[in-house]
């Protein structure tokens, strides 16, 4: 397989956007084309989860490729739940690595704020098992709440650890001009003060309001190219060095050990193996913290810390900016926002920014190896990516 490089990146603000879904996908693509110095690409992949259901927009890739005046490039939409973004990048990676195409554009977009929060929650819940979960009223927050309770009982994670993740990531988002949340929070304000229960009520106990990511609109884009094209373009050489994907049972209750996220473990191992790097080589990571507990658990499953030790690393400050392995410097899903189809691409956007040394106030010094984990379903379809800076 050929080496694949990220030659262009672009992103929109993650917030409520008053534009059609196709434009939310197109704007970051225009920015990425400009960033790469390109006018044409061979193929376009559009990551999106809910256009058909939420925005009455199907055939999104066809709309986007025309909006961008990139016809007659091939174009298709990739839907893999909240992991759609990284899945689309994986498809782009395969297209370039296989030699089928030299330059592909991967853009992810979602416009979830077109409906209210209840409808948005219901829309995301459609990824659960229709007969064993959804019809009983299961939502992603409720699944995450049950998962968190079990994890706390088994490994000693407390609500304070969850609050520490929330504070870390939401405050990282203050340094990201594209992030959805720009309000600083403190453990005092959301956990310890007499008014904390009102400021931060339970959503799905033990998960509270600030443990959950916001519902966001937004888009992000990366452009992938072969080594020959990347070197000709002359920009910084950031290689998409490893891709991994794995699945797990659709229903959590069918897993032998519900607190194990085997798909995360497997996808990460594949990505590291293909990239030829180890978890200990990673300088900066973006993990899928749709709920604060997920950052802790994923940090263990991908191999950064031992099982049951993620919260201890958090306590030591290892995962903070300035720590040994900063996680979610962009703010993560918690602070940057979570337009589901765009998230995996936004994670890649942040890592490329970091490896280029262009992340401004949230720059991780000397970052050379970066990693992303995009978590689909409740861990039933996971895509991990490993990036290495070559120049």
């Amino acid at each position, binding site marked *: 397989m050929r080496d694949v490089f990220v030659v262009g990146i672009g992103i*929109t*603000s993650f917030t*409520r956007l*008053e*534009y059609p879904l196709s*434009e939310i996908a*197109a*704007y970051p693509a*225009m920015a990425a084309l400009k960033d790469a110095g390109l006018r044409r690409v061979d193929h376009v992949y559009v990551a999106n989860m809910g256009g058909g259901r939420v925005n009455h927009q199907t055939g999104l890739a066809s709309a986007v490729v025309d*909006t961008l005046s990139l016809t007659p490039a091939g174009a298709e939409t990739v839907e893999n739940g909240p992991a759609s973004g990284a899945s689309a990048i994986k498809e782009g990676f395969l297209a370039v690595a296989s030699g089928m195409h030299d330059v592909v554009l991967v853009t992810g977009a979602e416009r979830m704020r077109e409906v*209210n*929060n209840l409808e948005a929650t219901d829309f995301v819940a459609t990824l659960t098992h229709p007969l064993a979960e959804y019809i009983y009223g299961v939502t992603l927050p409720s699944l995450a709440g049950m998962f968190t309770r079990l994890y706390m009982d088994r490994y000693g994670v407390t609500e304070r650890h969850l609050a520490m993740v929330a504070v870390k990531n939401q405050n990282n988002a203050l340094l990201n001009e594209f992030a959805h*949340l*720009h*309000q*600083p*929070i*403190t*453990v*005092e*304000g*959301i956990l310890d*003060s*007499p*008014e*904390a*229960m*009102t*400021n*931060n*009520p339970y959503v799905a106990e033990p998960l509270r309001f*600030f443990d959950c990511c916001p519902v966001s609109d937004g888009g992000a884009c990366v452009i992938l190219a072969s080594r020959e094209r990347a070197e000709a373009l002359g920009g910084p050489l950031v290689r998409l060095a490893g891709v991994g994907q794995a699945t797990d049972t659709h229903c959590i209750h069918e897993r032998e050990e519900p607190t194990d996220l085997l798909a995360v473990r497997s996808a990460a191992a594949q990505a590291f193996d293909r990239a030829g790097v180890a978890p200990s080589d990673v300088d900066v990571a973006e993990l899928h913290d749709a709920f604060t507990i997920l950052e802790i658990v994923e940090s263990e499953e991908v191999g950064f810390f031992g099982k049951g030790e993620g919260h201890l690393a958090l306590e030591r400050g290892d995962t903070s900016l300035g720590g040994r392995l900063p996680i979610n410097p962009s703010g993560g899903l918690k602070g940057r926002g979570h337009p589901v189809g765009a998230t995996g691409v936004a994670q890649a956007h942040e890592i490329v920014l970091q490896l280029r040394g262009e992340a401004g106030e949230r720059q991780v010094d000397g970052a050379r190896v970066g990693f992303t984990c995009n978590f689909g379903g409740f861990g039933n379809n996971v895509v991990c990516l490993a990036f290495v800076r070559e120049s």
Partner: protein
Amino acid sequence: MSVDLEKILRPVDRPMPPFPPKHVTVASGEEMVIRQVGRDEIPDILPFVGPLMYVERDFYDVVAARVYSELLAFYRHRMQDEYVLVAQIDGELCAVVNGRMMTEDVGMSLHTLAMRRGLRIGAHAFAAKMEYHMDILGQKEVLIVAESPIGFRRWMIEYNLEKRFDVPHELGGVPSWALTKDLFDRARDTLVVGRRPVPDDLLAKAEAGILPPSDPPTPPEDLLAATRSLYDPTGTALVLSRWKQEGKVGG
């Protein structure tokens, strides 16, 4: 002659006991003081309400326009039995809420205008307003409406308000919802929180002056206007963009 006419035009307020100030720790960890303001402080508030009339997002424009008129009417003695509470952090104006006593037993909630978002500041200020009606004025129920979906979630859903659809609300004549004493009591300690007395230094800072909001809501940015114009054969986006530059339309 003009003095006599003013006597007719100016309503005579019923006596209303003052709202005792309280303080709340918000999610940012900052201490927010909620206190009542009199007519003398209204001119200090109006300049920060006015710009929000042009924020076409989450009905800020409608709410701000109405709040402006209600505060002005209060200041100029053209509204009866009105009160105004403000929420401040280090003196910064974070929210304005107001209402009035409709009868001895029934309160009329007017508006809640949050000027910092994402920290439940508006919700705390609204709760203080309800506390004033129930605990200080001793009323039996408060009539409420929401102009935005956010308000509907905050008031109608979180407080589980009762329908009073046969009673038109003073805001737009729309059907009212009601917070009863029973519903209010159920919300105590969960939605209605805060501590008294306010430490002297906090209160002194709040009363020293109303400082401008540090991060007020702003109109949606038309980031894509230029991009859209490329694909807009009618040129609407370009025309709109030019009109904005020329001040012919808001934003």
